[in-house]
């Protein structure tokens, strides 16, 4: 007995005894049956005897024919060669055969033209685009994260293209499993790996990273993402609904909650690239792809200089902070309150002090505080005037003093020539002067600002006209804006010994939020020497900041994958009833008991998991993938529930054939292309289409509708507007300020193949929704095709369909002016066959009837629509 099989049987026994006592929660009625067919290793079946020795082209056919003969049902004859090449070309590439390809196939006199056709199509890059799409369905690929804002994931496309390459290169499926689950580990383990190979392996772990994200702060809801990983892992590789065991032992299959949390720990010990979310916008943990030594040196050099410049900025900031220390000390003293109040939105309140004695250097401060629960809408208009009582009757007016040369310095001079009369203050303790001048804030000319970054701030509209900003800023106005966590201030430092009269106004400047509180205070002491303008330091800071900004632009950028890496190794505790806040005992990271229950001994365990899943003696993996390939060739799986091989799934219609295919597949080195050859070079695949009782037994081919992608790609190809190059990512906007109120939504158009269209999770592309595209939120094992009138409306009135029909008409017209030629060519292009005489007559009659009410160009457009709307175009036989 093989060691693995022994372990397996042992595990089965364990599973039997173990499965119920995993959790403290009451045991569910477990109807699970470890003797279920799919949990037994495939055994090499004998090829059944058949009466009709001429029919089978291979052993595969014998399995099918035996059942047909047993049922007494005669299979159909072989398909017409033109139908066959159309069927096969769509099947392997998702595109129609060209007239030349059809001609070449018909003219091929070699011993096996069909085998040649299959070889040619398998070698086409278009093959991976079609069969990669099948796998992308299974792994619910999307270009967005799926949490509240459906954050775009700029690097997801690398995994998409990796999948397409994997199919084109016929990557052995067990290796495909290893790379997707543990490519990063393999890459790091190989010191001699090429940069290209390293990148490929890390990119493969996109399989894990594209798991769906949840909630407002997607990091908090990561347990749901891990559930999604486990769900997709189970369905995609094993045909098991593992996620059922999140809350309790699986009701029908021998999967315990311990199994679930044993796997959970593996993914909890894994770092997933984080796409950002509403509550946590920063993208983190993108996985760097490998680069050359020279690039590495450049990066190091760049980083070094960046650190130096950052230190320079830091030093300048420190000096500026030091320059306000004296002010902060003096400012801290108790002040005399002169006036105070509160205003609501849309309100204003005047203040006045009739006579106040001041000494030179005293500071009077107007302090504006955000009222409780700041919502960032506290733009406040200030008017403030002081007049000397007696003496020279000097007059100071904040607007008149500062509006025209607002940014000249802080402290700011008055009109009389006193250099440090006005000061704009960060009034949060310890008090400081605002040090950051901003000219023409956000490109709004005349809107100048003093602030710390970004609030509090003091600003003006120096123009004679209003400025439309977050609210309309009236002309010639002076404003303050407190920070969310504290006040802003304006200080007037007395240049005189004497008495002053004070008049002023505090007025809401943005009718939103909840108003502000304000107070006017008198602080004694000589403030003048403390409010020096650190001109030199500010200039140094500005220079350093400019240098840093310039340097940041020169960043040596390297590519990253949206993928996975090893994290901190943790075992997970059982979540009682699936509640992550109600924890039970810890479960060591492990394989599910059904597959052996082995403990993780290396790292997170992902590599071991990949080995367990891709083990040649695993009873499920090969059967599941073989069934997927069969399903996509014949329209129906040998197991009709491709994502569920458990007891709730369907039993195989041809169990021996399934085992035979699975064993051959593993023997072939897990080659998908070999499997295609095996299946397609059979009699059964090449039968003509039927619809009677023979079809269930594969005695005829099951015709099928084109998928959404095939429809779009065909329309592009026929109109000669299909771009067959391989695109990279999507034109996502640089801003990522999405919220649940304003989530990311886009619908980018291009002329590449449909597999490259940007796919979102919270909204579906109209074409995909209409023609039953894959679900980007959960594994799609088989698309369910609908046939509804809204689809036919698409053929009648859709703009894209009309455009492509017109493009086809142009193509025909370019080729020939003779109607009969055009009609024949159109049939050859769209249907893979020439037109019959009656069809040519009918088409010409149609053109004639149509031109009674429209010009000839429109008539040909219309006829092309008729052709493209036909059942013969939309269905494959």
């Amino acid at each position, binding site marked *: 007995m093989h060691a693995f099989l022994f372990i397996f049987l042992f595990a089965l026994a364990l599973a039997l005894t173990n499965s119920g006592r995993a959790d403290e929660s009451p045991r569910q009625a477990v109807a699970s049956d470890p003797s279920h067919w799919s949990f037994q290793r495939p055994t090499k079946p004998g090829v059944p005897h058949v009466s009709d020795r001429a029919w089978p082209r291979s052993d595969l056919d014998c399995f099918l024919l035996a059942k047909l003969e047993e049922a007494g049902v005669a299979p159909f004859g072989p398909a017409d060669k033109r139908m066959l090449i159309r069927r096969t070309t769509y099947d392997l590439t998702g595109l129609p055969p060209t007239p030349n390809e059809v001609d070449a196939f018909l003219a091929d006199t070699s011993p096996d033209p069909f085998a040649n056709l299959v070889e040619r199509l398998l070698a086409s890059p278009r093959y991976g685009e079609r069969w990669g799409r099948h796998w992308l369905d299974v792994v619910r690929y999307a270009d967005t994260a799926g949490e*509240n804002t*459906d954050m775009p994931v700029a690097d997801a496309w690398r995994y998409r293209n990796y999948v397409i390459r994997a199919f084109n290169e016929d990557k052995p499926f067990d290796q495909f499993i290893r790379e997707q689950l543990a490519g990063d580990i393999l890459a790091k383990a190989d010191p001699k790996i090429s940069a290209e190979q390293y990148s490929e392996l890390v990119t493969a772990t996109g399989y894990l990273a594209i798991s769906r994200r*949840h*909630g407002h702060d997607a990091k908090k809801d990561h347990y749901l993402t891990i559930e999604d990983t486990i769900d997709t892992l189970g*369905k995609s590789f094993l045909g098991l*609904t593992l996620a*059922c065991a999140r809350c309790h032992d699986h009701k*029908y299959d021998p999967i315990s909650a311990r199994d679930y949390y044993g796997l959970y720990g593996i993914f909890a010990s894994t770092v997933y690239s984080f796409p950002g979310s509403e509550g946590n916008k920063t993208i983190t943990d993108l996985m760097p792809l490998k680069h050359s030594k020279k690039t590495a040196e450049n990066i190091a050099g760049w980083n070094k200089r960046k650190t130096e410049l950052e230190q320079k900025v830091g030093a300048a900031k420190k000096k500026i902070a030091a320059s306000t220390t004296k002010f902060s000390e003096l400012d801290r003293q108790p002040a005399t309150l002169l006036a105070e109040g509160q205003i609501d*939105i849309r309100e204003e309140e005047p203040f006045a002090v009739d006579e106040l004695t001041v000494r030179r250097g005293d500071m009077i401060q107007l302090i504006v505080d955000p009222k*409780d*629960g700041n*919502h960032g809408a506290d733009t406040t208009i200030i008017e403030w005037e002081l007049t000397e009582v007696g003496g020279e009757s000097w007059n100071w007016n904040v607007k008149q003093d500062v509006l025209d040369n607002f940014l000249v310095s802080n402290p700011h001079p008055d009109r009389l020539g006193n250099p440090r009369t006005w000061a704009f203050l960060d009034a949060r303790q310890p008090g400081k002067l605002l040090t950051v001048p901003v000219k023409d804030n956000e490109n709004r000319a005349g809107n100048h600002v003093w602030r710390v970054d970004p609030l509090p701030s003091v600003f003006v509209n120096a123009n004679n006209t209003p400025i439309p900003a977050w609210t309309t800023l009236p002309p010639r106005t002076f404003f303050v804006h407190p920070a969310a*966590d504290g006040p802003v201030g304006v200080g007037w430092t007395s240049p005189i010994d004497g008495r002053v009269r004070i008049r002023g106004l505090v007025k809401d400047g943005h009718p*939103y*939020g*909840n108003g502000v509180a304000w107070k006017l205070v008198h602080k004694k002491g000589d403030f003048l020497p403390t409010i020096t303008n650190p001109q030199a330091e500010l200039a140094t800071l500005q220079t350093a900041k400019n240098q840093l900004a310039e340097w940041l632009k020169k960043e040596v950028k390297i590519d990253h994958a949206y993928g996975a890496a090893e994290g901190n190794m943790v075992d997970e505790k059982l979540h009682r009833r699936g509640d992550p806040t109600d924890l039970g005992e810890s479960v060591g990271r492990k394989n599910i008991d059904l597959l052996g229950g082995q403990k993780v001994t290396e790292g997170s365990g992902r590599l071991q998991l990949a080995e367990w899943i891709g083990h040649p003696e695993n009873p499920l993996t090969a059967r599941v993938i073989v069934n997927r390939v069969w399903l996509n060739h014949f329209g129906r799986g040998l197991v009709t529930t491709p*994502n569920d091989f458990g007891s709730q*799934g369907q039993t195989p219609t041809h169990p021996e054939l399934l085992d035979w295919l699975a064993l051959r597949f593993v023997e072939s080195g897990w080659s998908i292309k070999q499997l295609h050859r095996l299946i397609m070079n059979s009699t059964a695949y090449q039968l003509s*289409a039927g619809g009677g009782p023979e079809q269930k037994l594969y005695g*005829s081919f099951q*015709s099928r*509708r084109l998928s959404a992608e095939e429809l779009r790609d065909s329309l592009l190809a026929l109109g000669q507007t299909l771009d067959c190059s391989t695109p990279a990512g999507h034109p996502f906007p640089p801003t990522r300020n999405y919220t*649940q*109120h304003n989530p990311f*939504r886009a619908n980018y158009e291009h002329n590449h193949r449909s597999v490259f269209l940007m796919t979102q999770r*919270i*909204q579906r592309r109209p074409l995909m*929704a209409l023609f039953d595209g894959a*679900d980007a*939120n*959960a594994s799609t094992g088989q698309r369910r095709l*609908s*046939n*509804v*009138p*809204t*689809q*036919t*409306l698409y*053929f*009648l*009135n*859709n703009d894209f369909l*009309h455009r492509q029909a017109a493009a086809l008409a142009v193509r025909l017209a370019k080729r020939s002016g003779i109607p009969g030629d055009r009609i024949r060519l159109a049939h050859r292009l769209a249907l893979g066959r020439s037109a019959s005489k009656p069809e040519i007559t*009918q088409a010409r*009659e*149609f053109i004639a*009837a*149509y031109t009674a*009410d*429209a010009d000839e160009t*429109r008539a040909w457009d*219309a006829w092309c*629509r*008729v052709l493209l*709307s*036909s*059942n*013969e175009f939309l*269905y494959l036989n």
Partner: protein
Amino acid sequence: MEPFRYNPNRRHFLQSMVVGSVMMPALVADMMGAEQANQYAPRKTHFSPRAKRVIFINLSGGVSHLDTFDHKPQLYRDHGKEIAKGDHPEIQNRPGYERIFLKTPQWQFKRYGQCGKEVSSLFPEVARRVDDIAFINSMHTSHSNHYNATLGMHTGSFTVTRPSIGAWVSYGLGTENHNLPSFIVIAPQSPYAGGQVWGSDFLPGAHQGTRVVPGSNPVPNITPRVPDKLQELELAAMRQRNQQHLAKQPANPELAARMRAFETAYGMQMAVPEAFDFTPETEATHELYGLKRGQNDGFGWQCLAARRLAERGVRFIELIHTGSSGNWDSHGDMMDHERLAKQVDRPIYGLLTDLKQRGLLDDTLVVWTTEFGRTPFNSSANHKGREHHNWAFTTFLAGAGVRAGHTHGATDEIGLKSVVDPVHTHDFHATILHLLGLHHERLTYFHDGRDFRLTDVSGKVVNNVLT
């Protein structure tokens, strides 16, 4: 060989179908082919239904129960009183919310109707219909985020995608009119959680909601691009091609069904614009919905469109006001509720009145809901807004089988928690399905190895709101 010729009789046939839009099921079955009819034709309910269709009004953002239909005199008295913070999900570790204070509503309540239901001055028009309405004042839900709560109110799932209630109803009951989709969502903007709100997920695609955007072109691909006469020619040529193709094919019911679908689509080109063309509606009807003649936006438009769709046999009609922004999420200032209430109060009154006058309220269920309520407290009493609140909110039902003039359940003295006969979103769904003759535990779909339901593993019918 069939000649293609302009066929006036066929045109009349289609038109007559459109005018008498609530088609006989037999005709529909005939048109759609047996395969299709089985999938979408009217289906047997689990027990005798009270309602045949639903108009589901969804006010997005979280309508305050305290300022609308759940009168709490104590809030007016205790304005400014500090209350214990508890474990309210919205204020844990939230700066500024170390202490919380009760906040008075800004509107006064009055008693209305025979039943004496207290309604605030935000909804003076709906107040005139309280005797037709059953209020549920004890709603609560599982999440205080818009996205999750909105998803939950529509699908019963607060995290992952599941079929929408409209899709479940369409799946459970089929449709009466194949010229119109069975589930239509009229939404000027996209809601929280986007198209998942009307998605069919694992249910057959035919049951997904069709989104209508108020305006001149509400349904995609509906407007013919060529004159009718030419389109007739095209359809005749398509039919000819398809018939010739069919004759050479072995039995494939899909092909015939698709041919019939072209006929239906042709009819839809008229039926859909006809449903949204309000020209035949009288001045009095326009007035009833607060709608100007020729206006094709606003909630009044949505409500009148809903009545017209209900008349035409659409199974589930959802009206979304307004979407994921500019909505009832009045954190900053509750006075914004006044602006929003003005947009919907008259139209909802108009809809209820109109349905009643026409006898449609006898077999139509009108649902009024939001995703959650708003807090009776804030970080200071003078704070102008209210926060998200999933512990309590109000919904109402009106029409077929509903115990009119009744208020079910109650919140505590300050409207913080649903304490008397609480109704969870799952219970709410179970009740809606019940009124349609569907048992929420029996309306299931086998997927991924198990039976799924709208109500997940819970849900209890609120018998108290039924007659």
